[in-house]
């Protein structure tokens, strides 16, 4: 078991390295000279050359990359071209809304999608199952922002139940905090929910045809216990895997959702950075989001050992 854990952790190193090289290379190709931007319109070629030397932009590619990596390891993501603040400071300011949104969305989606999928598998072929499968296909085809605007139209404009957009931090009270997160979480979560419900259904359906389920049913186990204590744990590995894969959808969706609902989080920061061509911010965001994705999937792979005692690579 320890061998598996160590190997799995080591295996993330090349992935992270490739991400770092790719991210650095993409933004290295960016047109425009950051030194010229920093120096301003009136700068002489000498001043620009001095900034080049100060920032290390005159050094070869691989040296710049190593310097950049060294800075990263000290938590230095560079300086925003637009606001002139350290990128790490900008990230810390914007972190809270994004974390709140992703956590509420994950809880909402996993909490709803898994039971829905289990019930669909139990009632396979029934109208309930069809409804779930239809929802799964629809949910996967409706883009986050279309869902977002439909929700705003119905629940905020027509019914006037929830705020149209914006964010309230937890310090301003639990109720306003949650009220502002309901629609964004739903919009962001629906495609994720569709994915999880679909996999849960397929996975549980497969387990339900196995002998131990028949035995459990024969000895008169209540359905609820049968489904959630016997079937679901045995179907857990594919479900947990897809939750990990789906985190990429979630993280990408954050950028769009925060934009639709005017939530001042990391995703919104990225969108603003695109408009200003603020490359260090885009670079940093790319690294953070990919890092979270890699770590979540690492955690999930390690979780397998706990979920499924048969796994002993």
């Amino acid at each position, binding site marked *: 078991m320890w061998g598996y854990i160590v190997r799995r952790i080591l295996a993330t190193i*090349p*992935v*992270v*390295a*490739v*991400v770092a*090289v*790719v*991210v650095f290379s*993409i*933004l290295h*190709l*960016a*047109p425009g000279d950051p030194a010229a931007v920093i120096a301003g319109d009136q700068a002489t070629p000498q001043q620009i050359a001095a900034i080049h030397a100060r920032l290390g932009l005159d050094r070869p590619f691989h040296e710049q990359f190593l310097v950049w990596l060294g800075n990263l390891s000290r938590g230095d993501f560079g300086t925003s071209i637009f606001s002139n603040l350290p990128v790490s400071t900008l990230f810390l300011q914007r972190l809270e809304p994004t974390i709140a949104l992703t956590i509420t969305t994950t809880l909402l989606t996993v909490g709803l999608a898994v039971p829905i999928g289990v019930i669909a598998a139990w009632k*396979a*072929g029934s109208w309930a199952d069809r409804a779930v*499968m239809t929802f799964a*296909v*629809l949910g*996967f*085809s*409706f*883009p*986050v*922002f*279309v869902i977002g*605007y*439909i929700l*705003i*139209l119905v629940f905020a*404009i027509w019914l006037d139940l929830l705020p*149209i957009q914006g964010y309230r931090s937890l310090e301003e009270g639990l109720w306003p905090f949650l009220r502002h997160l309901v629609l964004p979480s739903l919009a962001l979560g629906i495609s994720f929910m569709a*994915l999880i419900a679909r*996999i849960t259904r397929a996975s549980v359906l497969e387990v339900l045809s196995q002998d131990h389920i028949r035995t459990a049913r024969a000895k008169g186990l209540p359905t609820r216990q049968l489904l959630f204590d016997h079937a679901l744990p045995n179907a857990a590995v594919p479900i947990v895997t*897809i939750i990990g*894969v789906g985190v*990429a*959808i979630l*993280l*990408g*969706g954050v*950028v*769009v959702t925060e*934009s639709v609902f005017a939530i001042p989080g990391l995703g919104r920061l*990225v*969108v603003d*950075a*695109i*408009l200003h*061509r603020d*490359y260090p911010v*885009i*670079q940093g*965001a*790319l690294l953070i*989001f*990919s890092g979270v*994705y*890699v770590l979540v999937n690492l955690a999930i792979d390690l979780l397998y050992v706990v979920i499924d005692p048969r796994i002993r690579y």
Partner: protein
Amino acid sequence: MSSSTRASVTEAGALAGAPPEVEPHARPRRGLIWRARRHPTVALGAALLVVMVVIAVVAPWLSVYDPLAIEALARLRPPSAEHLLGTDAIGRDLWSRTVHGGRISLLIGIVVAILATSVGLVIGLVSGYNRIADAILMRLMDGLMSIPAILLAIALMAVARASIVTVIVAITVVEVPRVVRLVRSVVLAIREQPYVEAAIVVGSRFPKILIRHILPNTIAPLTVQATYICAAAILIESLLSFLGAGTPPEVPSWGNIMAEGRAYFQLAPWIILAPGLFLAATVLAINLMGDGLRDMLDPRFAKRM
């Protein structure tokens, strides 16, 4: 779901009932139309897609107005007989803009699907063929797949000049690793097959085996994958344009129309909803086609999540 199991049961029955001397190849092949009837969702998807494609193709004749023509006196008009889907903030006809947007979306979807599957096929075959190339390429693909798709596309667009071509290239880069993984898994599975071993024993060279025996096996799963990529590309393009990192703002793509409607959503929700619903319907149609194709062709490798 139930229809697919029924189809496979009948096929198994036909096989069992066939006289033993008949080779498996000789079993009666059913036409695509027959199969489509057994999969009503596919038929629905196909019908919806045909409508979307026809609308896109005949867009210039469907649109009463020039999609770029500004009518200053008819700003933010709700849907009416004169303007089927209303007008936007500077008085452009939304119906005309939306049907033209379909052309751009479908064009990008189809081109990306073709490009990504072709590039992915070549890289995947090389990867399945050469161990050293495999080690390097797969690490690269793993890395690329660890960057959430939309963010990678945003970063690529941020360093490129906004144009339809750069959007196509950016989305292709995002989708290629998924194709490579698929093709590689097919190559690795097929090269263990007895008939491939037999071909090696009789002295066929590996490039020949790759083309004669392995390549044909990739076609079914790749077709399914290409369908999903087409849907994903249309989605990503609209997201990029919506966020201001996609096709140039003057192009009437669905994402751009929606981006322009954001400031007026409370006043004129139809600016966002009209292209949004067209977008969702198109993606839905293509996804239904993909699911149906997967069931029909039954490629064990194409279970893309």
